[in-house]
């Protein structure tokens, strides 16, 4: 107890509640006076009495010292002194302090910003209870690694997988909402009742429909709405549970409102399975047949039992797949259900780009650290005299190191605070740009992990920035430092500084080379011909409600009328339908059989499958190379025809004329005759390799989901309202969406690569600037140390050019050495980036050469001023400096 009291009292005195020396002085004086008086009374003279009193008292100095030692916490006291000293040092050289703090702050800021994104996208758990046990369930076949689940597979998994606690189905799809002023398209999510339970969701109002109520055959017309939709459509009114919604032509009763999971806005990939307006029982899934007999249609989400792993689940799935194949031999063989952690499935592809960016900013930070460290080394060598004096007066090495450590700690603390601020502020800009192919959540929280990361980075930095200079300095011979004329530059010191600069240059070079790779890849991708002309093309999508258009003739009638009306709009040069607009992310493949070519079941070739109307190729300006385009005569009554692309022709009938040959697909009953060949056009991505593409006449296989494309003479969006009116004149309840020019779609697809290249370039520029400053600093310092040498040389008749050349050559030598490491690092980095770089070899010489050249130029620019200064040294002044 008393120990505590004493400790507290000591601590209190650190913060000012201490007995001042003045008080003690008064007590001591009083004491001495009394002692003297005592001696006087026993007969001594005044002076002798005083002397005797002092003798009795003992050393006043020691008393005072011990008294002081009794107060304060010695460590803290020393720290306070160090801090005050450090602040004084900073005030004396504000320029240096500002540069150091700013450099470090930029490095920390970039890291904090990026780490916040990485944290939000990759590291944070999804906002569901026990999210680590959630899996995304799909199916896989040898030819199609990611396939949807069929209802039959879902039932099998539900009943037989022992490692799974619960499983649900879901699929988001556009849904037509009618009954309002205008028909509207909203996102619907077709789910089984078990879906809500699996994700651990809760209703805010009302209830969810049960598994039974969503089973095909027993489905109830119930719908659950999201919180956001409830606010938007019903104004958050409590009467929502009495409302009905007309979805896809059918009336549904609202029975519940979904409570949003906390931080719903902070989930990547637009909230995944929960970001929908309405939740509809899976049994109401639109299609020609009942859901239970439909093939793969939906995605699954499952929750593992506690203690189970994905390996257990995979084993279960293998068994289930075998049983299914045995029970239903006519189904597609080699299909297996497959599970991955839900987080991974939402985020997957972006992992590489995010981690790459993190490495890049890490490199920038390292460069910044090295720079500041170098600056500190240079400065501490300047202060050799001061430190030598301190050490001569008894300061231990530890004390000196501690003092330098405190300086570095204060610097990094300031830059950490500033960096955190910069980082968080720039987050807004970063998310606006997007980072690569990531769907960054709109809200990026600042949580404990980010703060810890920043703290960790700062401490590591303080270490690097402090330890290197500190140990450099205390290792020096104090006597040598005190000698008059001692110069700061020992050869060992210079080597340290130069090797640090070489490290900076190497890192910057690697970053510049990486930027070069990305730029090259970007150019390749953007220059690849698309195969069609995206300018002046208007697009939109629609999906017809199957209830209103039950048969193919009905669908055909609607679309025939629609196209006619759209073509009549002034400004429209041509119009057509296509199932999926190129690069829109829609569209799929179909297996096909070639007449006369036998192939094992399950390994049929695949082709991208398009349903188009006549004039599609004309609208998209895809050249027809052989045969003909579709015509109005290709309808439900005439024989089936198809158009293929060049790659299809080349792959399937090499050297032969494909016109007249026949093929067969899964969804059409008869053989299809090829009537034309068109040029290759990209569909899934702008840089995909050429693939077989198969075009079938829409009017021979009318589908409810399709897109309109129209080539306009003016700006595409100018006709938007006219098109809407044309469609509504055919069916006033038919909503449309994704109304945008094809240009915008193409740009959106290209944007992630552009952004990534931009970001890498930005960081490379930062690093190069910092490295340039570093070169300037080192060369500047080196020149100032060698003034004498230069003075002598100039006095002995060396031309100024020679002296300048000396500095330049030195600099280039540094760049040369750094190139070895830097270029090697660049190659490694490119290899890591892997799939992000299209068409560029990791050892592409042009990018590497460009990087070396850039750094050499920057370095030469940086050393220009010091070189000039070297050549302008006045020999007399230099010689006098002794």
């Amino acid at each position, binding site marked *: 107890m008393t120990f505590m009291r004493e400790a507290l*009292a000591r601590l209190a005195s650190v913060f000012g509640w201490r007995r001042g020396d003045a008080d003690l002085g008064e007590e*001591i004086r*009083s*004491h001495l006076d*009394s002692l003297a008086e005592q001696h006087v009374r026993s007969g001594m003279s005044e002076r002798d009495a005083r002397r005797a009193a002092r003798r009795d*008292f*003992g050393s006043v100095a020691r008393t005072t010292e*011990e008294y002081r030692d009794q*107060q304060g916490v010695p460590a803290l006291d020393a720290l306070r002194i160090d801090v005050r000293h450090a602040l004084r040092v900073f005030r004396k050289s504000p320029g240096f302090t500002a540069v150091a703090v700013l450099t470090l702050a930029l490095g920390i800021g970039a890291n904090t910003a990026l780490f916040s994104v990485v944290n939000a996208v990759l590291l944070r758990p999804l906002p569901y209870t026990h999210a680590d046990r959630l899996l995304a369930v799909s199916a896989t076949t040898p030819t199609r690694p990611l396939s949807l689940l069929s209802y039959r597979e879902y039932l099998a998994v539900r009943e037989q997988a022992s490692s799974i606690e619960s499983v649900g189905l879901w699929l988001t799809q556009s849904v037509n909402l009618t009954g309002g002023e205008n028909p509207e398209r909203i996102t619907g999510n077709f789910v089984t009742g078990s879906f809500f339970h699996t994700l651990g969701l809760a209703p805010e109002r009302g209830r969810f429909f049960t598994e039974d109520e969503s089973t095909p055959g027993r489905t109830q017309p119930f719908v659950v709405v999201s919180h956001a939709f409830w606010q938007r459509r019903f104004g958050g009114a409590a009467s929502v549970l009495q409302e009905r919604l007309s979805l896809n032509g059918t009336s549904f009763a609202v029975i519940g409102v979904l409570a949003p999971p906390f931080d719903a806005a902070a989930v990547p990939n637009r909230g995944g399975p929960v970001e929908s307006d309405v939740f509809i029982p899976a049994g109401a899934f639109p299609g020609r047949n009942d859901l239970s007999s439909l093939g793969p249609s939906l995605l699954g989400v499952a929750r593992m039992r506690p203690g189970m792993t994905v390996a257990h689940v995979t084993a279960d799935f293998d068994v289930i797949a075998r049983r299914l194949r045995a029970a239903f031999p006519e189904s597609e063989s080699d299909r297996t259900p497959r599970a991955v952690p839900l987080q991974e499935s939402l985020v997957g592809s972006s992992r590489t780009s995010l981690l790459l960016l993190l490495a890049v900013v890490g490199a920038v930070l390292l460069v910044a650290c090295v720079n500041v460290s170098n600056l500190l080394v240079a400065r501490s060598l300047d202060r050799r005299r001061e430190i030598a004096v301190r050490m001569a007066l008894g300061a231990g090495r530890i004390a000196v190191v501690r003092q330098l450590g405190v300086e570095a700690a204060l610097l990094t603390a300031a830059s950490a605070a500033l960096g955190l601020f910069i980082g968080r502020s720039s987050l807004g800009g970063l998310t606006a740009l997007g980072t690569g192919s990531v769907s960054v959540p709109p809200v990026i929280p600042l949580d404990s992990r980010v703060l810890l990361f920043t703290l960790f980075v700062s401490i590591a930095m303080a270490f690097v920035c402090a330890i290197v200079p500190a140990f450099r300095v205390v290792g020096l011979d104090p006597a040598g430092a005190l000698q008059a004329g001692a110069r700061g530059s020992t050869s060992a010191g210079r080597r340290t500084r130069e090797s640090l600069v070489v490290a900076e240059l190497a890192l910057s070079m690697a970053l510049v080379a990486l930027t070069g790779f990305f730029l090259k890849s970007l150019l390749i991708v953007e220059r690849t011909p698309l195969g069609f002309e995206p300018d002046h093309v208007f697009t939109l999508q629609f999906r017809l409600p199957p209830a209103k258009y039950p048969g193919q003739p009905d669908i055909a009638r609607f679309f025939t009328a629609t196209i006619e009306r759209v073509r009549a709009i002034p400004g429209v040069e041509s119009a057509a339908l296509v199932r999926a607009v190129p690069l829109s992310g829609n569209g799929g493949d179909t297996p096909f059989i070639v007449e006369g070519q036998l192939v094992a079941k399950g390994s049929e070739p695949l082709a991208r499958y398009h349903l188009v109307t006549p004039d599609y190729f004309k609208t998209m300006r895809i050249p027809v190379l052989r045969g003909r385009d579709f015509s109005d005569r290709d309808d439900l009554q005439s024989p089936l025809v198809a158009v293929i692309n060049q790659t299809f022709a080349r792959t399937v009938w090499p050297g032969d004329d494909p016109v007249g040959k026949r093929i067969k697909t899964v969804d059409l009953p008869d053989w299809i005759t090829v009537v034309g060949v068109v040029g290759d056009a990209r569909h899934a991505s702008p840089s995909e390799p050429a693939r077989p593409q198969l075009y079938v006449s829409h009017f021979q296989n009318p589908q409810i989901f399709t897109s309109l494309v129209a080539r306009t003479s003016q700006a595409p969006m100018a006709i938007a309202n006219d098109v809407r009116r044309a469609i509504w004149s055919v069916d006033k309840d038919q909503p449309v969406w994704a109304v945008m020019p094809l240009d915008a779609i193409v740009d959106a697809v290209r944007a992630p690569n552009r952004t990534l290249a931009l970001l890498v370039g930005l960081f490379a520029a930062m690093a190069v600037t910092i490295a340039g400053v570093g070169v300037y600093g080192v060369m500047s310092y080196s020149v100032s140390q060698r003034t004498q040498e230069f003075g002598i040389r100039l006095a002995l008749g060396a031309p100024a050019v020679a002296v300048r050349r000396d500095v330049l050559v030195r600099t280039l030598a540094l760049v040369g050495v750094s190139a070895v490491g830097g270029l090697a690092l660049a190659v490694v980095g490119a290899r890591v980036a892997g799939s992000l770089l299209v068409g560029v070899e990791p050892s592409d010489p042009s990018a590497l050469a460009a990087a070396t050249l850039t750094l050499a130029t920057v370095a030469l620019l940086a050393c220009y001023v010091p070189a000039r200064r070297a050549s302008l040294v006045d020999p007399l002044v230099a010689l006098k400096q002794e």
Partner: protein
Amino acid sequence: MAPDADIPYGTLDLMVLKTLDSMGPLHGYGIARRIEQVAQGSLALNQGTIYPALLRLEQKGWIKSEWGASENNRRARFYEITRAGKKQLAAETESWQRTVAIVTRLLEHEP
């Protein structure tokens, strides 16, 4: 850190406490004088060492201090024992006495 006084650390504390306990509030000089008197010259005490000790005792809460006027109207700090101090004094006295008793017994029972 320990000052090399002629008397061990702990016993100085004990003596101060005892002095204050028997004499009531005293200032520094008074305490030093009293200790010297009681020791009857067998102790060589550097009187200055009392001040760090007094501060320590105050930090431990065994004494408290107050400014006041001394006999010759000088401003002096007066120290007074606290209740906790009295308890500490009693405990340490007992501990000393026990030690003395043990050592005495040991010395007497030398075979």
